[in-house]
């Protein structure tokens, strides 16, 4: 394929104002899935509404299963995937929790399912609000996790998810996360890929060896019992596939740029990192706001950068270390809690690599939980704090940015 020709051809664009959910639905349509399972849950519902409309108008040639619950949604797409189909479903929060057994089974079976999870608070308190706790609650499921920052990235990452999940070297299910409310309902201009370009992007999968499928008369079974060495062989292969997904995702980013003209940097995206002294590590929609505040702080002479995590599982430790090494202070922004630890989950995970960062100091910020807004003021406060940290001042290890009451004495209402 003549890449220069491809870039030249790509002078046409079709920019439409759509929501994050709309982008996910269109991306799913463009990927041409065989089987889609649909069950509504706020803030994902528009995805399945749009897919239903595409299906009702004959724009999507797929089996659409309007299941009676999320557990059935995952079980249905997992099975369709093992039978050889390309699949799609979407959920959030409690829906993700309700399909948990099937989520685990899907990963164990290495079914290349692609699912969108619109981040929403859970588990523990019934909440219809933004937060990444649902993603955290399934981080050990064995799925690949990708996170999008804006509506364009939602569109692009869902397409990349298919390329990654179904790659013969990978064959691990992929969950695409993006923030509920702040991104799911955000309307902004998105350059919608043309169907023929998406077909080209995914066509490389057709040239690869065919994956194992459950077919009538095929004399092969799946979901069989595993024990001892046989079990461990499967687990080791799964762990290795997840390791390979890191470089593969970087490769896919380059392939994507060739066809669509957009690159995000692969596992991580660096924003003004080269000469940064202090860094915020974040993911998802907060990154747009952080970039804006960084530009303002830079005008004041503060050398701050953003390391945006796009791949969360596998944990992109090598990329993170390479980028963060030698930085004076790092603030990790978590939109969730690590129960049993003091701070946020991504902070605790990154902290495990602290010794490889050549002296960087690291602290935790908790913000954006339960619809609290990660405002420009909040981000400014975080940057000031890591500057203090870099200057050797005493700062808190964990700052509840969205709940300052956490830093006072226990509230007077009683109870702990």
């Amino acid at each position, binding site marked *: 394929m003549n890449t220069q020709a491809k870039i030249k051809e790509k002078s046409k664009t079709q920019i439409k104002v759509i929501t994050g959910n709309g982008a996910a639905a269109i991306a799913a349509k463009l990927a041409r899935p065989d089987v889609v399972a649909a069950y*509504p*849950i*706020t803030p994902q519902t528009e995805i399945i509404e749009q897919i239903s*409309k595409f299906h009702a*108008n*004959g724009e999507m040639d797929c089996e659409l299963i*309007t299941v009676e*619950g*999320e557990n059935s949604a995952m079980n249905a797409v997992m099975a369709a995937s093992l039978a050889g189909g390309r699949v799609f479903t979407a959920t959030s929060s409690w829906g993700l929790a309700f399909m948990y057994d099937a989520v685990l089974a899907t990963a164990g079976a290495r079914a290349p399912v692609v699912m969108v999870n619109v981040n929403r608070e859970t588990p523990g308190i019934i909440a219809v609000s933004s937060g990444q706790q649902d993603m955290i609650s399934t981080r050990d499921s064995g799925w690949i996790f990708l996170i999008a920052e804006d509506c364009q990235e939602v569109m692009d990452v869902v397409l990349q998810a298919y390329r990654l999940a179904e790659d013969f070297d990978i064959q691990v299910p992929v969950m695409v996360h993006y923030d509920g409310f702040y991104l799911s309902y955000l309307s902004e201009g998105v350059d919608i890929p043309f169907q023929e370009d998406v077909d080209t992007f995914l066509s490389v999968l057709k040239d690869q060896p065919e994956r194992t499928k459950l077919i009538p008369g095929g004399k092969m079974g799946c979901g069989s019992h595993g024990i001892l060495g046989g079990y461990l062989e499967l687990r080791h292969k799964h762990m290795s596939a997840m390791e390979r997904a890191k470089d593969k995702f970087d490769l896919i980013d380059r392939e994507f740029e060739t066809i669509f003209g957009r690159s995000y940097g692969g596992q991580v995206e660096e924003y003004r990192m080269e000469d940064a002294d202090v860094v915020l590590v974040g993911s998802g929609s907060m990154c747009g706001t952080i970039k804006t505040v960084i530009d303002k702080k830079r005008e004041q002479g503060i050398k701050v950068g953003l390391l945006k995590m796009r791949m969360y599982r596998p944990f992109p430790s090598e990329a993170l270390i390479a980028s963060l090494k030698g930085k004076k202070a790092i603030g990790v922004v978590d939109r969730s809690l690590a129960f049993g630890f003091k701070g946020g989950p991504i902070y605790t995970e990154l902290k495990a690599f602290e010794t490889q960062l050549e002296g960087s100091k690291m602290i935790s910020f908790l913000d954006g939980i339960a619809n609290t807004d990660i405002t420009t003021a909040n981000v400014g406060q975080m940057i000031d704090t890591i500057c203090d940290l870099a200057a050797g001042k005493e700062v808190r290890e964990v700052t509840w940015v969205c709940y300052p009451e956490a830093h006072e004495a226990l509230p007077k209402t009683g109870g702990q």
Partner: protein
Amino acid sequence: MAEIKKVKPTKILDHFVHEDPFSKGVAFCPGCALELLLRLIPRVLGNDIVITGTPSCSAPVLLGQNNQSWHTLSYFGTLMTGAAANATGLARYYRKAGIDNTVVCFNGDGTAADIGFGNLSGAAERNEPFIYICYDNEGYMNTGIQKSGTTPYGATTTTTPKGSIHKGKNLRRMNLALKMAMHKIPYAATATLSDLDDLAKKLKKAKEAKERGFAFLHVLAPCTTGWGHKPEDTIEVCRRAVNTNYFPLWEAVDGKIRMTKTVKKPKPLSTYTELSKKFAHMTKEDMQILQDDVDYEFCILGGLSVLDGECQLPVSAED
């Protein structure tokens, strides 16, 4: 001790003896049947019920937020997936501890017919001592009108939209109330908001039956926003649902069905569907399929029931 004279209520309003524990200005759409139902339940059953509710159209009012509530009832916010199991836990403990109680498990059709049906069936099969009330607005309304198992044939929802190839739901509804009666529970019944005397009596019978075990009420609660009828037409929609036999009113004691209202001359189904935009696109063929489904269900009821009046079976072309 002086004998307490039993006085029959002669007026419908006499059923609603207790206070309305809900505040004013709650977040229901104008014309919402669910609001009427929710306010009436404690007025019949008492303000000491323990009510469970799930994320749904009732949630903004029933579940409260942080430490604030829109009513004074004891309540438990459950997930859709285990509502009947939660209610089971409450009722069983209260029974063990000798605490007098009426647990009301209050759910929409999305929970009762779909995602929570498994544990509803399980609770009924075990004959758990609580009242399960399903308010049926024939779809997932709180998330913006999606189809559920009780959505009728032909209806448009956002997951069964009117497209150029597919138009509306192409599957017949599932008859939840009949399924629950087949669990042979002490009490199962259908009710709606146009027949308040019938509804109130059934609430009371459910409470009595709870002493023997599981009670189930299926209440048709039209949704003006989702069905596309005028807010002021909500009660009329209920009325026409009953008098077209779309939603017959019956009860089942230990699985034995009897009609509680016999419609001597059922009106054509079109008088019911014409009120709601969700049926507006239906062709003659669609309407016939829906009519056949309504007739089929009624015929089954007729076959299973002991009727007060005449059994109105549709005339069969072949015999």
